[in-house]
């Protein structure tokens, strides 16, 4: 049993509570005397606040209080901290007040808060707060914001340039000089809205007698939230308890410390009642971070035989109006270091400018930096193939980094752990019947039907990551994980972890690990997470790190449990500890498995402690921390097949093949689920999704009516397969799988559409490839 549970697609233990409506998300919680907070938000993208009149609102029925930014400053609340300052980039960190006091810098910027007895009354009163604004000129485009004469957002940030970061490896100038061919592209990796199905919410309770603040919040990382809140709310860290109850998806958008977290704490303290804030979806679109938003000018150099020799680029990364928690790290470390992709490219250089604009802050969104890297590399490789009149599959094979098991250093300086890119690609080509597809494509083209085949081969950096590297690249925290394994007298196990899953299923996979390693029934294991007063410090769930890093800590604790149980068994069997063997939950003297002690026997004895060896503490509990020696680099090959209707511009996805390699798989059902979801999010970017601002800074895609979240009937069933190249970075050989689909699928589908349109002469279309854009591109090309 024990051996089989690892690697088996058992059903998730999370599900019964979710399927029956018993799970409690933040907005489902209600406390006695609980009040509701509503935020008054700026309708202007850039304006001076001339006056705020709150009297009328504060006299309305059920209103407990109306407050402004000044009230929060006076109560000792400080600006929202930025937790990632990339070194060697002259990063400017202008203050990010939780409520604007003098200037608003994006539509949705908070200007006041209202607390009422219910959400309707709070909203009514929020609408009655009168704010006089003096509009200022607005800039929403990152490139334009850096030009002479552009509106200036922050006093100490000339040309709105937050940072200028560079990555360099090899001699890119020489490489381009020596090249036979160069392909260039201007890529708009458009702004996206994360759209976790659960909007954000925060509920704060204050206990004056103890000084304790409890915050229930929609967070992916309660321990980071507590740490950051201790910096800006004036409450010391040990007096803050952050609980992430059930969290309805995050995709990065629930990593940051947001102004509303501080607002509810402020209001709960000031009014001495529990205060809850829940955003509406339309509020979410303005007040919760966005993702991507790069303008890229990139070029790739190659020899005429197709060997790639250099890649260089310039990127203007839109950061929005303020620095969200991790925003500077996304377009730099998580983007620029991945520019070699799966290819051997000796010479790489990129300049990245992080730019403030009058838009919602931009931060990590599923993939976070890596989709922006993978897309440009995969696009350029396809363009190079077209220019050289080579098959894009053949060109990729020529340039792959050969298989490696002990690290491979790329030009950007990072060391990939393990990889076999050609292996995954060959498998994908076979499943797709690539040769057959090309034949079919040629036949269809003869009939003026446009079938496209798109390839994306990728590797990505995740399993964040070694803490030393985190420090070196300016991340204001560690990136290790922790676990406590506790055996109760009856042999049942509770595990307390620092990660904070919210849909990824680690309650199940971590129980599978414990069951496999310690020989207990999987049903006898409970995994607890998401409460800073109950779980050990950990850095949370993002960057596909929970299993890759968290399981390392879990394995450390399991190892300690085994050692202690061995010592105890040796004592009881009157043998030497080194003579004790362990198999499937049983400890025995080597060669005498018939006289075994079970882990449950040892749990009971250690807990009652009637007969312990002299130097052994009672109890069977172990705690461990794990800081990985490197990141992990999952990889794979995706192939999309599309049909484009040249008359309407409509793109129909006919097939989608994904071969991914995340090392060892603990639960294949969960891994497949992660891949499915990722693919759909990435295809969303390729075909439909785009956050649009007008020149005055109004978000035109300001509700779900206007922003195209993919629907069920847009997709065929995906064809999935795996290869298995374990990592040596963690004890189980596992890599992350949370973001691969999103990273791989955008270029696969984009390349497929452009491949379909190549006979018509269409060379480029900005994403998303909506029917209108495709139709216009065809029409332009035909002229």
């Amino acid at each position: 049993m024990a051996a089989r549970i690892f690697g088996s697609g058992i059903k998730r233990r999370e599900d019964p509570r979710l399927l029956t409506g018993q799970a409690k998300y933040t907005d489902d919680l209600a406390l006695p005397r609980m009040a509701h907070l509503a935020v008054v938000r700026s309708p202007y993208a850039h304006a001076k606040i001339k006056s705020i009149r709150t009297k009328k609102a504060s006299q309305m029925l059920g209103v407990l209080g109306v407050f402004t930014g000044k009230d929060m400053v006076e109560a000792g609340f400080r600006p929202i901290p930025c937790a990632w300052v990339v070194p060697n980039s002259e990063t400017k960190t202008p203050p990010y007040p939780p409520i604007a006091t003098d200037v608003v810098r994006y539509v949705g910027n908070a200007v006041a808060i209202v607390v009422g007895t219910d959400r309707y009354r709070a909203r009514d009163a929020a609408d009655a707060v009168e704010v006089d604004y003096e509009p200022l000129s607005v800039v929403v485009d990152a490139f334009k914001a850096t030009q002479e004469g552009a509106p200036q957002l922050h006093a100490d940030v000339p040309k709105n340039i937050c940072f200028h970061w560079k990555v360099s490896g090899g001699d890119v100038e020489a490489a381009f000089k020596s090249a036979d061919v160069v392909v260039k592209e201007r890529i708009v990796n458009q702004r996206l809205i994360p759209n976790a199905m659960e909007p954000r919410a925060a509920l704060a309770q204050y206990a004056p007698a103890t000084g304790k603040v409890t915050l229930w919040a929609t967070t992916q990382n309660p321990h980071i939230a507590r740490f950051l809140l201790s910096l800006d709310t004036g409450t010391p860290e040990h007096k803050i308890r952050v609980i992430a109850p059930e969290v309805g998806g995050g995709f990065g958008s629930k990593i940051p410390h947001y102004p509303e977290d501080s607002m509810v704490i402020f209001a709960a303290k000031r009014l001495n009642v529990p205060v809850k804030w829940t955003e509406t979806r339309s509020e979410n679109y303005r007040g919760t971070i966005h993702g991507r938003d790069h303008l890229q000018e990139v070029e790739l150099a190659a020899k005429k035989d197709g060997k790639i020799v250099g890649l260089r680029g310039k990127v203007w990364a839109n950061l929005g109006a303020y620095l969200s928690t991790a925003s500077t790290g996304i377009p730099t470390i998580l983007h620029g270091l991945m520019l070699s992709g799966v290819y051997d490219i000796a010479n790489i250089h990129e300049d990245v400018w992080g730019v403030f604009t009058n838009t919602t802050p931009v931060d990590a969104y599923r993939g976070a930096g890596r989709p922006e890297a993978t897309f440009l590399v995969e696009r350029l490789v396809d363009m190079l193939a077209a220019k050289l009149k080579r098959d894009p599959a053949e060109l990729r094979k020529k340039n792959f980094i050969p298989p490696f098991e002990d690290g491979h250093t790329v030009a950007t300086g990072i060391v990939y752990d393990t990889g076999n890119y050609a292996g995954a690609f060959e498998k994908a080509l076979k499943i797709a019947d690539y040769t057959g597809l090309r034949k079919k494509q040629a036949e269809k083209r003869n009939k003026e039907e446009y079938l496209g085949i798109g390839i994306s081969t990728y590797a990505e950096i995740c399993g964040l990551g070694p803490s030393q590297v985190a420090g070196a690249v300016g991340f204001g925290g560690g990136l290790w994980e922790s676990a406590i394994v506790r055996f109760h007298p009856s042999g049942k196990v509770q595990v307390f972890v620092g990660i904070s899953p919210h849909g990824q299923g680690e309650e199940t996979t971590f129980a599978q690990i414990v069951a496999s390693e310690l020989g207990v029934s999987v049903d006898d294991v409970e995994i607890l997470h998401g409460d800073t007063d109950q779980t050990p410090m950990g850095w949370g769930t993002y960057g596909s790190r929970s299993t890759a890093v968290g399981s390392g800590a879990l394995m450390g604790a399991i190892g300690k449990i085994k050692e202690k149980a061995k010592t105890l068994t040796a004592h009881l069997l009157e043998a030497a500890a080194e003579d004790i063997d362990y198999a499937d939950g049983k400890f025995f003297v080597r060669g005498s498995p018939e006289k075994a002690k079970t882990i449950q026997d040892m749990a009971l004895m250690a807990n009652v402690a009637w007969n312990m060896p002299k130097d052994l503490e009672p109890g069977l509990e172990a705690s461990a921390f794990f800081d990985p020696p490197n990141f992990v680099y999952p990889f794979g090959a995706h192939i999309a097949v599309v049909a484009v209707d040249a008359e309407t511009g409509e793109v129909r996805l006919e097939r989608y093949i994904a071969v991914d390699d995340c090392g060892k798989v603990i639960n294949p059902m969960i891994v497949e689920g992660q891949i499915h979801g990722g693919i759909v999010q990435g295809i969303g970017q390729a075909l439909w999704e785009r956050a649009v601002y007008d020149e005055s800074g109004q978000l035109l895609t300001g509700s779900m009516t206007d922003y195209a979240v993919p629907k069920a009937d847009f997709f065929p069933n995906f064809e999935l397969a795996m290869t298995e190249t374990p990592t040596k970075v963690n004890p189980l050989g596992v890599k992350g799988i949370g973001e691969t689909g999103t990273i791989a699928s955008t270029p696969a589908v984009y390349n497929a559409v452009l491949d379909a349109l190549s006979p018509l002469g269409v060379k480029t279309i900005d994403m998303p490839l909506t029917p209108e854009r495709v139709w216009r591109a065809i029409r332009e090309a035909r002229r």
Partner: protein
Amino acid sequence: MNHSVSITVNGVSHRDEVEPRLLLVHYVRETLGLTGTKVGCDTGQCGACTVLMDGQAVKACMVLAVQADGSQLTTIEGLAENGKLHPLQEAFWEKHGLQCGYCTPGMILTACHLLERNPNPTEAQIRHGLEGNLCRCTGYQNIVAAVKEAGKRMRA
């Protein structure tokens, strides 16, 4: 001025005084405390708030509580009978048709109505039928498989 409404939810009758503007979803979640029904948007797109009203799947954020006066509602809490999961709940569990779980109550109730109208839907019909419910986690493939499987079991 408040209005009196009588609404039967999961077989239990309720009579409450409500503001005329109170959304049915807030009545269910906050007046009755049945928080299994979720709110995912404010424009009727996402379907997280779907409940069955007199057997029809409706988005409870697009209905006022006063409009539901006299009706019979089924929410996710009322689907399992005597602790036995509904075939849709079973199938979503087995086929891994959920991740974060937030869209799941609405998705299941929509699927319930779908299977009621068409007990043996094709995959395309299922995908079409779920168009009004958004999920950001699963990529829909396993949801479609779950609805298909549930249909099979309900026909048996």
